[in-house]
């Protein structure tokens, strides 16, 4: 097994050749933040948005938190749970970070949570949205600064019936946990408000040709609710229009179907799409206007919710550390402080945590519109201070199983 030896030598050579010695971890005293994000692979662009958000906050504040210098160590998860676990170990055991943040994809979130508890190091989840991470399987040391997948869907489902008046809706959701949760949350409140889901279609993850699904869509519906992610978000609106559906059935969606990450790549066919999320770059508040302007100046594009959430995560760590006088080495105290943070003026609006460690925050219903030649998610409705449980009591809500492909069941299909 010479692999280890040769591997180490090779790695060392590469290190010397590309980076040179004397990297970072020499000084004493900085607060070290370990940040996990996919920096290579299919989701590398999302990873970049995430890092940009955090970096921007730190740069704006001189890399100082509670009077201490801040050092961020970014590790590439490659979007894979096992790599994320290895890098987590490296950040905690070799780099001795005091706080962790980041991560993308639900399975990475589930993989990391037990280890984070084992290490007893606080970790902030700005993006990973799997419902049960703060519902049925909460981890003590995980603090979510993002959202749960079904959180925006809850107020939205009811709103679609009561405001838009749609009674019969077809759903098309990417067939994996995130899709099930977004669609499930929508179905629950939509049907409780008197609507009927008359058809549920589940294209598999990675689908790029939706023609077989679009041809099945029942034409006697009032609207279509689509949940797309990444590559499928880029293609879906075009194909929806090409199938002749845009003119007949209004297109609603989950937040990621039309988020700022994909909008610049979409054409006019996306105009009119309505979706709920915790953020829109078009939120018309001074804080957000400044944030968007600054972000564009730095990175040349409109911030996505990934960027906003990681930016706010920087603020979050700051506020918690400040409240305990910078003593982040006392982990229990630090964790308690993190859970108590209330950010009244994040770009997305006021944010604070519920008892389960998930933000209570505004949900914005956004409509894709064209302004100055660009697509924006104009906010057409704001639900203030929405918890992950919506209008339900947590104990009642948690009695139902987590949303999946067949829950809630399709009673009107």
């Amino acid at each position, binding site marked *: *097994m010479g692999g280890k030896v040769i591997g180490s030598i*090779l790695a060392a050579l590469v290190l010397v050749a590309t980076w040179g010695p004397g990297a970072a971890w020499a000084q004493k005293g900085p607060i070290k933040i370990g940040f996990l994000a996919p920096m*290579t692979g299919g989701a590398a662009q999302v990873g970049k948005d995430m890092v940009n958000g955090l970096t921007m906050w730190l740069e704006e504040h001189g890399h100082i938190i509670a009077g201490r210098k801040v050092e961020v160590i970014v590790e590439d998860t490659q979007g894979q*749970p*096992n790599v994320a676990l*290895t890098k987590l170990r490296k950040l905690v055991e070799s780099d001795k970070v005091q706080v962790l943040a980041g991560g993308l994809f639900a399975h990475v979130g589930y993989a990391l949570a037990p280890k984070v508890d084992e290490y007893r190091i606080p970790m902030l989840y700005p993006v990973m949205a799997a419902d049960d991470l703060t519902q049925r399987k909460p981890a003590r040391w995980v603090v979510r600064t993002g959202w749960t997948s079904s959180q925006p869907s809850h107020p939205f489902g009811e709103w679609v019936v009561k405001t838009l008046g749609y009674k019969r809706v077809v759903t098309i959701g990417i067939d994996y946990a995130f899709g099930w949760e977004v669609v499930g949350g929508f179905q629950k409140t939509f049907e409780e408000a008197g609507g009927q889901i008359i058809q549920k279609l589940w294209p598999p993850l990675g689908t790029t040709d939706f023609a077989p699904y679009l041809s099945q869509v029942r034409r006697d519906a009032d609207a279509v609710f689509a949940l797309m992610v990444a590559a499928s978000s880029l293609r879906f609106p075009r194909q929806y229009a090409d199938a002749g559906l845009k003119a007949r059935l209004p297109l609603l969606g989950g937040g990621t179907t039309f988020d700022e990450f994909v909008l610049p790549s979409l054409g006019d066919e996306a105009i009119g799409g309505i979706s709920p999320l915790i953020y829109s770059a078009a939120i018309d508040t001074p804080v957000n206007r400044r944030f968007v302007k600054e972000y564009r100046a730095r990175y040349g594009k409109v911030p996505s919710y990934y960027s906003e959430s990681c930016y706010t995560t920087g603020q979050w760590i700051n506020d918690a550390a400040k409240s305990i006088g910078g003593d982040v080495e006392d982990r229990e105290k630090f964790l308690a402080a993190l859970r108590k943070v209330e950010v009244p003026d994040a770009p997305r609006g006021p944010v604070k945590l519920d008892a389960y460690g998930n933000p209570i925050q505004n949900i914005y219903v956004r409509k894709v519109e064209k302004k100055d030649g660009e697509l924006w998610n104009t906010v057409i409705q704001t639900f203030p201070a929405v918890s992950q449980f919506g209008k339900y009591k947590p104990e009642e809500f948690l009695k139902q199983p987590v949303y999946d492909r067949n829950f809630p069941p399709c009673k009107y299909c």
Partner: protein
Amino acid sequence: MTRRALAPGTPRIAIAIVFGLLAVSPPFVSSFLQALLTQAVIYAILAMSLDVVLGYIGLASLGHAAYLGLGAYSVGILATRHGAGFWVTLTVGVLLATAVAAVFGLVALRATGVYFLMITLALGMVVWGLAHRWVSLTQGDNGISGVPRPDLGLPWSFAHAIPFYYLVFTAFLVAFGVLRGIVRSPFGATLVGIRESESRMRTLGYHVWLHKYIGFIIAGGVGGFAGVLWAYDNGFVSPADLELSTSVEILLMVALGGRGTLLGPALGAGLIVFLKNLVSVYTQRWLLILGAVYIGTIVYAPEGIVGALRQWTKGERAWAGR
């Protein structure tokens, strides 16, 4: 005896030194390196198991991650839901992988070459699909988290990195011993003959299919064995472990290290695990480096690293002379 290496002792000494280092060094390296060593050793078992199919039978499989997954899910499901212990999960994991290999072999071994590649790919996707869609059992793509480290009823706890490493290292030695015994046995010689000329073996009187089938099943079983350890190491199982990219990675490990050499694939596994995890700490261009390593291997050492070393030391690929 056939004429062997000019300096027959050299490779053995080198191998002994590496094994010695693997046995002695872990307590003295950083915990991150310990974690990488553990992973590398598990992947080494996996790569060696695939080498039976690729290196000895001469068939390229793109579905080997399926066996890793079967072993890993056996642990994930049994340990978290039923509190099953190490020996139970190990037995079930290996038997399940063996049984599935026995079924897959019936389908896949009808073909050779690129058709074998495509059939194994499809079969691998079937297992991935099950992991992804059979949510009530596997929890879908959220994966199964919270797999505890094994308890063997021994006085030390395998929750700690060092004892767990030694457990994995012992497993590696066992797997290596078993596979080495097999490839050097008359049966292993038969596999080499099949790789070299299937038609000739047939007229010599070999039931070629049967030998390939047995080899294929052994590879699956040992792959499941690696999967069991993998689940315990990560404490987590998800369909990501069964993706095509994992199968490709294992195949590359074997090709990189040298197919048909057993230790070569183990070396390849170590190299790739370190490249993937260690080099990516220092540069996001690790994929570029990995690509360069592959190309370098294809151009300068088409038989893989160990294959090239053997030619260099004039050690034939002989098994009869040892």
